[in-house]
Every structure is written in C-alpha cells, then in structure tokens.
C-alpha cells in the first residue's frame, strides 16, 4: 500500500479527521490557531510544516520577547549593514568590506554521536555565513564537556574534536580559536557551539528573499534523505502497511566535500550575478527555506515537491518537507539566468533542480504530483509563530549560593604552598594547554591567519593589499553566570571584548549563543531573561551592537539544568594586521599589570579546581574600566609601543604569566609588590586586567599613555634576557621565592589532555 497523500481538497471536507498534533509537539491552542489561520484543518504536510517551524528551535517562541532587548537597547551605531533577523548579521569594517559572523549550537546531536554531531554543526554555521553572500574565512569552536574524569567524557571530547577537525579541515577553513571547558554540569549535555566568520564586498551582500514573480526556486546540493525527521514519523506510521517505510536515520552524517563544492559553486553563482535571493537549508529544511524565502519576498511561491531529488525513494511528502539533510541550499533565479546557473552547478558537480517559482498569490502552495498538499500564508509559518511570555522565578537557592563565600576556603600561606598550587592549576583541565585539541585543526589554510590559539583572539587578514583584518574571541564562565546570570553575561562580554582589544583590534559587534536548560522551568527562564538583559545593557554601554545569535534550550538532564552558559563572541577590526599585539614577550621587556586586583575568588578557577567550590558574590564587571583599558590597548598597539599583551582571566595572573612564558620559552622574574597579598594577586579573577610587556625604548611613552588614560599600572618585573634555563621566578612570596622551570611547567600543562583521552 502506498502512503496516503492528504490533500488540501480532502482537508476541506474532512474537518474532523484526528491529527497527531501533540505527538508533533504542538499544544492544543497552537493547533487551534493553525485551524483558524487556514480556516480548515491542516493537511498532514501543513501540520508537519507548522509543527517544525513553530518548534522552540525554529520559532524562538520562549525567547523572542526577551531577545527584543537586543534591538530595543541597540547602541547608536552605523556599523550594522544587516541586523538581527537574517541568517547572520553583517558589519561594515571599512574600505567597502563587510564581515558577517555568527555562533550556533549543535549540542544534543553531539552528545548522541559526537563526531557527526560536531561535524554537521560546523557545516550548518558555514552555510549560514555563505547564504549572506560572504566567503567563509574561519571557524571557531566554543566547547563545554562534563567532568574530565567521568568515563563518558573521553568519548564525547575525542569525537567532538575530531568531528570539528574532520569537517572544518576538509572545507579548508582555518580554525582560529574556541574554548574547551570542563564542568560536571555539562555531563549529559555537552555544549558544541560553532562560529563562522566570512567577508564580502558591500555590494555582494545577499538576503533570503524570493522577489520577482516568475523567478525560479532552485534547490541545489545534496540529495534529500530521511535525516532528522524522527518526529514526523508519526504521520507516516499510521498509513504504511506492515512492511513500513525504510528505517529513518537517527544521526545525520556530514559530507564536507559536498559542502566544499557547495561553497565554491554558491560563490561562483553569486559573483556571476545569477542569484536574486538565497537561503541555506538547516533546521526544518525545505519547510523553513521556502516559507522564509516567500514571506521575506513577494509573499507567494509555488513548489512542486515531487521534483526534489531524493536519496531514499520511500520518503513521504511530509518527511521531504521536514528533512534536515545537510549540504543543501536554495536560490531564487531569474528564468533568463537559469541555464547559466545550472551550468555552474554542473561544473562543480552539484545537483541542482528547479522546484518551483515565485508568485504573487500571497500563498505558499506545494503540490505533490500535481495535487495541492500545502496552501498557506507563508508568514504564518515563518514569522508569526506562537510567542510565549513564560513564567519566571528567581531561584531561592541563589541566596544560599551567594552566602557560601570562598573566603572560608583554605588558601596557601607560604612560598611552598604557592608553588604547589601553581603546579595544580597549570595542569588543571580548564587551564592546561589545548594543543592536543588545536593540533587537530588546520589553522594555516587560506593563508590569512594572523593569530590563532593560544592567542587572546583569533585574527584574520581580510584584505591582502591594505592589511585590514578582524579579530574574534568567544567567552563565557558558566560558574559566574550560575552565581548571577545578569553579571555572568556581562562578564562573558567583558572578557571577549578585552581579548579582542588585547590583540590590538577595536571591538565592533557581538554575536551570542545562549545555552540554557528548559524554558518551561521558571527558574531557567529567569536565568535566561537576566542573561539577555545583562548582555543587552552591557552592549549598549560599550556601544557595540548584537548582530545575531542563537538560543539553545533544554540542555538539561531530568530537572537538572546546565550552568547558564551565554557564550558571547566579540568581533573587532584592525586597520593593519601587521600592527597586532601578540602574547609573546621579548627578552628584557618590562612586565606590567594593568588594572586593579581585588579579592575575587567566587566562581574562580582556583575555587573550582582546588576546592570544588562554587559560591559567593561574582566579580564586579566594570564596563567603563574595560572600555578605557581597551582603548589604551588599541592605541598602544597601533603606536607600536607594546611588545606583548595577554589578558588576565581564568586562573588569574599566575596563569597569564604561565601562558606568556610558555608561548615564547622565555622566563621572567617578577616580584609581589608592596602591600599585595601574593595568593590574591596571583589567583584572584578581578576583571579589567591585562599583562603587557614593553621594551626599554617604549616604557616611558607607555607609562605616559597610562597616566593619560587614568590607567592603574603595577610593575611586576622583567622578562629574562635569553632562553637559557628558562624559569618563572616569583619573589617576595610570603618571604620566599617560587621558581618554576619552564620545561616542567610546559610538560605539566601539555600532559593533561593526553592523560584525559588515554
């Protein structure tokens, strides 16, 4: 028996046919609204479309009311060429260049099948950037894993890292940074966020809209298979006989080579001027692409679904509409250009099929072998989904958490204990060298990578002639966000902002990936709202707009949610990448600490690693201090005054010095200034601090700049004059001296990951 096709004509005469809307995740009132919109019951194809497009993932129904803050509090700036609402925001970086960047999550799939989950996460975000008309230039991967010693962590860590490498390396996109953080809160919910950045000339910006009646809708790329349609099988199961349809895949497999072809082919058709509108296919596949293209454009579209090339001939129309098969794109093409378009596709060996055309009917009409199975106003599918104002509740446990001050934790009190703590911290999974991870990623391809891990931000050259470039950093300390989500989001922004400025780039714009538990839990919803407000307020104050982002809810196991994890990415611009500030100090440099250190150990890496403690008041985020520090760093970098700079964040000053020393293999001798408590100076995580190194020739000029900026400066010591027997020597540590040979420090730092994955 063939699959029964539910036609619009049939829906009109069988208003009472039972429909499995609940199994598809629709609430009774949502189902009712669909019936009101259509003035009849939906066909099963329509039901499939609405259910997936009105899902949390596609409709942002729980987050929308909050995300509006990013627009309402948008700073007054003219850098935004395309704002929130498109596939990715676009920023003007000068000289006619535009840059687009965005983060997305692929969390759950990466837990189920780490390699493929992470790989397809990269694939998805790259298509988002491509669909703006930009050439993808680099990727980054902020990652969160569970307890490093849990038996399942190794599976997820190794799979995710090789998946990101396997896909990104094969696409030829350098990986210029990311994060690797371990915390038991992510055990059953690892976070795999992926960022892509691309560049284009202003005139090459493309949008996802289907304009021009009579223009053709072309689907190109991979064939459509039964990927990611688990939910919709309820529509099929009732109508097949016992043989049933072929089994549907539980995991999507990425084909990076196909994606590489898709990139080259897409850029070629765009540059040849053959494309009116373009959209990538990600979540919700053809449902999303057709309804979004139509509702952003002329408002009508006619699609012949039976023309879609299939990988699995047993797919039903509902499944084809919802399939999330990877490596597909959709373009709107003027009929006169279609031959040229198809020719370029053929050159790249990319299957391309005209599946429909733009109409002025205001309706999205989809037929199956000539019969109408979908007839809907596209806006109602793509943009007018339900919006919830979900209940919010400040958690009671926050007060208990705040009262649990890290002041009670035993601290080192002599030089020997400081030395011991140093070793423990340097080898701790969150601070240890990430070379095991990053050596699996190609950071050289395309030849424009100016800075990559372990530098504070990734930096790429956009224009070979002028040296114009951009820097990006992503950050978030989920423990701080747990203590206070409003401050946590600002803390993440401040850190990313500082990282970008540290390398000499001027922060310009923001993207984010908001990873939270279930929005149906009022406490999680409160955390979410607080984080969004915090971020929006801080962006306004710093004058850098949010250009886009992504929300990932339901990261929880049972009723235990992950730490709220608002990952924030900041993009900065630098006129000439030659003038970047690296983190490698030079022989004989003076080492200076910029910024004031307070007792900020709540949420710190030290409290976590040494005491498994989380509690107290998170560090204050002083945005004015960040802004003024950032400006100083950019000016000093541009004037060539700084040898090196590296920000102080996780693991405090001790870790900053460790990183800088290991980076160059040059030791240093520093001494605890009068009046400072050695432990606090070394491991407190007060924000708005950076370590710089300055050579003799520029020291006076730099100190004058600091005075001009009102920047607090603390001289710490001096870089060794050569690399013989290099060591970090810290004097005046509770009356003693701590000597850390660099060879051992590096060995401790680099041994951790190989041990974790053994």
């Amino acid at each position, binding site marked *: 028996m063939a699959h029964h096709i539910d036609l619009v004509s049939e829906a009109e005469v069988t208003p009472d046919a039972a429909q499995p809307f609940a199994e598809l995740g629709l609430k009774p009132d949502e189902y009712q609204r669909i019936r009101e919109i259509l003035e009849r019951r939906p066909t099963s194809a329509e039901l499939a479309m609405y259910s997936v497009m009105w899902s949390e993932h596609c409709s942002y129904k729980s987050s929308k009311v909050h995300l509006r803050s990013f627009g309402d509090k948008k700073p007054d700036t003219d850098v935004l060429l395309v704002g929130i609402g498109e596939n990715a925001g676009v920023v003007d970086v000068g000289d006619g260049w535009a840059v687009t960047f965005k983060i997305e999550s692929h969390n759950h799939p990466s837990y*189920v*099948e780490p390699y493929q989950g992470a790989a397809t996460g990269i694939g998805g975000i790259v298509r988002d950037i491509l669909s703006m008309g930009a050439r993808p230039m680099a990727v980054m991967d902020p990652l969160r894993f569970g307890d490093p010693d849990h038996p399942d962590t190794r599976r997820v860590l190794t799979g995710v890292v090789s998946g990101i490498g396997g896909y990104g390396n094969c696409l030829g996109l350098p990986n210029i940074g990311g994060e690797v953080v371990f915390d038991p809160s992510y055990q059953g919910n690892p976070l795999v966020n992926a960022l892509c950045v691309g560049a284009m000339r202003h005139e090459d910006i493309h949008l996802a809209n289907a304009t021009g009646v009579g223009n053709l809708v072309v689907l190109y790329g991979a064939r459509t*298979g039964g990927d990611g349609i688990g939910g919709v099988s309820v529509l099929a199961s009732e109508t097949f006989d016992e043989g049933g349809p072929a*089994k*549907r*895949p*539980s995991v999507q*497999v990425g*084909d990076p*080579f196909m994606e590489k072809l898709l990139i080259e082919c897409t850029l070629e058709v765009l540059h040849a001027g053959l494309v009116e509108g373009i959209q990538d296919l990600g979540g919700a596949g053809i449902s999303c692409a057709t309804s979004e293209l139509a509702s952003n454009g002329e408002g009508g579209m006619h699609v012949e679904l039976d023309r879609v090339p299939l990988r699995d001939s047993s797919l039903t129309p509902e499944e084809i509409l919802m399939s999330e098969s990877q490596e597909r794109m959709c373009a709107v093409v003027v009929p006169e250009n279609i031959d040229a378009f198809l020719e370029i596709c053929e050159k790249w060996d990319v299957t391309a099929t005209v599946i429909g055309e733009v109409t002025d009917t205001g309706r999205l009409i989809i037929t199956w072998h000539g019969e109408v199975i979908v007839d809907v106003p596209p806006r109602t599918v793509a943009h007018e989904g339900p919006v919830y104002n979900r209940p919010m509740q400040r958690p009671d446990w926050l007060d208990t958490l705040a009262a649990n001050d890290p002041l009670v934790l035993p601290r080192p009190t002599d030089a020997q204990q400081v030395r011991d703590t140093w070793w423990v911290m340097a080898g701790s999974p969150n601070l240890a060298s990430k070379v095991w991870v990053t050596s699996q990623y190609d950071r050289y391809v395309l030849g424009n990578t100016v800075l990559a891990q372990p530098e504070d931000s990734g930096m790429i050259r956009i224009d070979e002639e002028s040296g114009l470039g951009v820097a990006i950093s992503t950050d978030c300390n989920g423990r701080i966000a747990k203590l206070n989500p409003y401050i946590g989001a600002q803390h993440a922004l401040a850190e990313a902002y500082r990282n970008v400025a540290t390398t000499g780039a001027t922060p310009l714009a923001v993207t984010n990936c908001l990873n939270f538990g279930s929005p149906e839990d009022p406490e999680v919803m409160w955390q979410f709202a607080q984080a969004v407000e915090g971020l929006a307020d801080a962006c306004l104050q710093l004058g850098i707009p949010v250009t886009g982002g992504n929300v990932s809810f339901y990261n929880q196991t049972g009723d235990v949610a992950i730490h709220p994890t608002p990952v924030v990415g900041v993009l900065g611009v630098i006129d000439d990448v030659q003038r970047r500030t690296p983190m490698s100090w030079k022989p004989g440099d003076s080492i200076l600490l910029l910024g004031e250190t307070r007792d900020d150990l709540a949420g710190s890496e030290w409290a976590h690693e040494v005491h498994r403690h989380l509690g107290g008041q998170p560090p204050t985020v002083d945005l004015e201090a960040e802004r003024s520090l950032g400006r100083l760093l950019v000016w000093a970098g541009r004037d060539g005054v700084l040898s090196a700079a590296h920000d102080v964040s996780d693991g405090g000053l001790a870790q900053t010095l460790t990183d800088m020393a290991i980076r160059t293999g040059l030791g240093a001798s520093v001494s605890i200034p009068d009046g400072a408590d050695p432990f606090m100076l070394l491991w407190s995580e007060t924000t708005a601090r950076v370590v710089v190194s300055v050579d003799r020739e520029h020291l006076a000029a730099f100190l004058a700049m600091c005075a001009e900026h009102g920047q607090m400066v603390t001289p710490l010591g001096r870089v060794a004059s050569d690399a013989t027997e290099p060591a970090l020597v810290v004097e005046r540590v509770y009356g003693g001296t701590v000597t850390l040979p660099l060879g051992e420090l590096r060995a401790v730092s680099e041994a951790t990951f190989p041990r974790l994955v053994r």
Partner: protein
Amino acid sequence: MARVVVDVTLKPEILDPQGRAVQGALGRLGLAGVTSVRQGKQFVIELEGTLDADRRASLDELAATLLSNPVIEDFTLTVEDAG
C-alpha cells in the same frame, strides 16, 4: 590460534559519503550502471589459544561497542577458526 573477522557496515539508512564518492568515480572511469556503493570496515583479529565461550562473549561485546558504533553501524562477527 583463533581467527575472527568482524565486518562493520554503515546502517543502510545512514548517508555514506565515502561510498558515494567511489560510486561517482567508478562512473567517471567508465563503469556504467553502478547503483550503489557502500564502504565498510573489516577487522581481522587473531588470538592465541582457543576461542572459548567467555572470550567469544567478550568479543561480541567489544564488536558492538568498540569496533562499531551502534548509533550508525551494524556488524557481523565470523569465527573463521576457533583455534
């Protein structure tokens, strides 16, 4: 000495980009009419001694967890020689 062969194949519904690449190449190189290519892995395992029930059981277990990924792959285990 015992000898066991474990064949691991992608589940039929899972996309096999490797197989598709080979299929494309076979066609370009002049072999017409290839409708499908699936690429799998084969492990040839040699053990000293004999394959008693215990070892057989642990091999079965390892084939299902270590040698194959049950989320996307199937396997068959063939004892060529029980030793």
